[in-house]
């Protein structure tokens, strides 16, 4: 079969796989995005001893292969089946999709936490002081100054992390999740035509390209101050008329 025929015949499967990949990556990244700000805050502000469990978790997640983590959850949960059944958790772990999602969410949480921590450390301390000096409560400082800034600093790295996660999600096919890779292998095992792998690569490439585009647009909206517009320099600009130029009233008594 020529490559186009492969696509014509099997496109519904590939589309189905694409949706699965998007779902897996999107949900995993989203869960991680909801948890990581809290963990990053602990990493930045908590006492070293209080952070110890968190640092252990992050070291483990960043220091072991994501495939190993996936197997640990997928096969590991099988070992504990009676225990999980007792707790009513088996229906969750029975599904390969859920195991993969959990592995990816846990993994991405570790990375996003560290990325965000870097962003938080990069926020100009003076701006935090200015927020405190104006009387903001701790939570308001976080909400209005620290996090908005930290996310702007961390944004490109966070985008990278999502792309890496999307590519890593192909591993889910190993535990029988029918994502792009899973469907591709399925199609290959029927057609024995390797061109289906080329189509899979092209799909991954398209997702990445679209995502990068979206992420850049979002960055431009988030950080309009970084847009490359000509910066008006005070020296070229006409001097503003200052209202203070008028004669001063008498000194107070």
């Amino acid at each position, binding site marked *: 079969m020529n490559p186009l025929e492969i696509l014509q015949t099997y496109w519904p499967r590939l589309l189905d796989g694409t949706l699965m990949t998007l779902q897996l990556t999107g949900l995993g990244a989203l869960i991680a995005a909801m948890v990581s700000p809290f963990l990053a805050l602990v990493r930045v502000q908590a006492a070293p001893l209080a952070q110890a469990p968190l640092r252990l978790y992050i070291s483990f997640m960043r220091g072991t292969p994501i495939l190993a983590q996936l197997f640990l959850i997928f096969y590991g949960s099988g070992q504990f089946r009676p225990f999980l059944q007792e707790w009513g958790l088996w229906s969750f772990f029975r599904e390969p999709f859920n195991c993969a999602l959990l592995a990816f969410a846990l993994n991405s949480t570790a990375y996003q936490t560290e990325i965000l921590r870097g962003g938080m450390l990069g926020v*100009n301390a*003076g*701006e935090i*002081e*200015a*927020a*405190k*000096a*104006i*009387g*903001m*409560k701790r939570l*308001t400082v976080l909400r*209005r*100054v620290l996090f*908005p*800034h930290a996310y*702007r600093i961390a944004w490109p790295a966070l985008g990278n992390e999502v792309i890496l996660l999307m590519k890593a999600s192909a591993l889910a096919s190993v535990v029988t999740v029918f994502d792009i890779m899973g469907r591709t292998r399925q199609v290959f095992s029927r057609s024995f035509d390797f061109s289906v792998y080329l189509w899979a690569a092209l799909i991954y490439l398209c997702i990445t390209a679209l995502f990068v585009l979206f992420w850049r647009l979002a960055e431009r909206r988030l*950080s*309009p*101050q970084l847009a490359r517009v000509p*910066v*008006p*320099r*005070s*020296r070229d600009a006409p001097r*503003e*008329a*200052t*209202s*203070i*130029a008028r004669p*001063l*009233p*008498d*000194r*107070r008594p």
Partner: protein
Amino acid sequence: MSERNVILKAEDIHKRFGDTEVLRGISLAARKHDVISILGASGSGKSTLLRCLNFLETPTSGTVTVQGEAVLVKHGRPVDPRHIERVRARIGMVFQQFNLWTHRTVLENVMEGPIHVKGVPRAVARARAEALLSRVGLDTRATHYPSQLSGGQQQRVAIARALAMEPDAILFDEPTSALDPELVGDVLRVMQSLAAEGTTMIVVTHEMTFARDVSTDVVFLHEGRVAERGPPERMFTRPETEAFERFIAG
């Protein structure tokens, strides 16, 4: 001068960083309309003192009272930490490095405090911010970001930001030290006009002209203590301590 007019009072402020005692028992009172210039060689503790007044540094011991609300510090901890935010909201601060929020426009910088600290309705905050910006001569820059402004313009925005809170007093921490010489004048003129309107100000500065011509009181710090204080007319013509005499001689 009655006690009633005292807006901000610091009593027996001590601050210790490890083994060095930077402030060794400083008392200071600003009455309504006072413009107090704090002078001193670098390392004399003047910036630390200013930062202790709104608890950006926590004094090792001492009391700061703002309009009757006292924050007592013992053993380096405020006795009631909840007071600090209330005190800060009533005392403006202008920094040497401006410290504008770079991800917000000039107008948003000025509106931020009133909306998110005082709960002022957005429209009211906006109208007031616009008025303040035109007051410091920057109404045409409202939609710019801080990075698009010169240092002098940024500092004037920072002053407008402090004013927007309608503070009882404003602290200035070497407001012109980070500016190009030709931009210093704009900022000083704004400060001068504030003084003329009766704003209570405490200014750490190296600008002798400002201290002499604009302030109502001069406090000279030397080695963590108030070495000399008094009205500028007297201080600059008849210094009483050798340390201050040497200081103004340059």
